[in-house]
């Protein structure tokens, strides 16, 4: 049954698929050609989504900066050192995404370690 106080629960929904009632659409599809050099295989995705990636990372940096502005400096100072220690092809892919978007490589790595870190 429905519950109108937090946490909100409701009756099981029916007939939602493929309605747009609770969806804003379907995402685009891109090919990642594994035969290409890892440094350039993400270029097509970044050509279309680079600005969105930058906006998201800028927002994360703002959140971090609100806690401590020095933390952002640490990201750019120390995270790039980690990239070169990543296994192939992940090291080259992160550098390639950084190059394609103009975003600091440490900041691209920051995005990629979210899931590891947030288990705390």
């Amino acid at each position, binding site marked *: 049954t429905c519950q*109108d106080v*937090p*946490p*909100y*629960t*409701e009756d*099981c*929904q*029916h007939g*939602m*698929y*493929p309605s747009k*009632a*609770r*969806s*804003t*659409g*379907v*995402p*685009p*599809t*891109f*090919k*990642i*050609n*594994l*035969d290409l050099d890892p440094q350039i295989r*993400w270029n097509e*995705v*970044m050509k279309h*989504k*680079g600005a*969105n*990636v930058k*906006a*998201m*990372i800028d*927002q*994360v940096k703002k*959140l971090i900066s609100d806690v401590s502005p020095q933390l952002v400096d640490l990201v750019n100072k120390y995270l790039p050192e*980690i990239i070169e*220690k*990543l*296994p192939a092809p*992940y090291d080259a*892919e*992160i550098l390639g*995404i950084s190059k394609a*978007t103009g975003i600091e490589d440490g900041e*691209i790595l920051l*995005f*990629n*370690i*979210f*899931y*590891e*870190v*947030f*288990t*705390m």
Partner: protein
Amino acid sequence: CTSIVAQDVGGTLYHARNLDFGLFMGWDTKNHTWLIAEYLHPLVVNLDFTRNGTTVYKTVNFAGYIGVLTGMKPGVFSLTLNERFNVNGGYIGLIEWILGYRKAHWTSFLTRDALEKSNSYEEAVDMLSNTEILAPVYYIVGGSKPGQGAIITRDRQSLTNMYSMAPDKGMWYVLETNYDNWTDPPFFDDRRTPGKKCLSGVGNKKVDFQTIYDVLSTKPVLNQLTTYTALMQVNKGTLETYIRHCPHPCWAW
């Protein structure tokens, strides 16, 4: 997150998930949404990884994120990764890794490695169960043959628990949120009970993309953190993704 592997009466497997992310990372007071979840919406992309012009595996990614949280090797297996909250968490693994202990794999690189290298459901399950990783997680794996569905609960160093479906015993689905399946979820974040209630209400005679999408569209399985819903059918190689929006009133997680 909520991941489901379900089998219909004909033995066809379906694997689906809601990806929830962005908790406590900024609240948009104007729109009453999580800031980072909103920024992630336009980053959702379907990816088709090819070699020699042929699809090797398909994933749903956030642009700029090179690991795999949702993916499928057509005809072979599908997988999803859910966060597992633990004091012995990923930040410890990350610190160890930075300090030079690099035997552990990054959790979402391991899933990509599994899609790349594993050629069967069993190989994928073995790889995801027995490889040392940086953070505790749940790996949810579905196969191409009846009965192939499991939740792999992982610590950083070892396998904690394996929970497999058993359709011949009436266990025709597995459902994982972000809590160990042998304990009760906390009262403030119980997506498991409504998810199981709705899925059980559907029954295995009616399970398909439509009905699983309905389950994943029901609040609080669908919540303010949900960025996308992915639906996978391995045998057909079908992967459908929908960017989600949770209209108010909608619980924050």
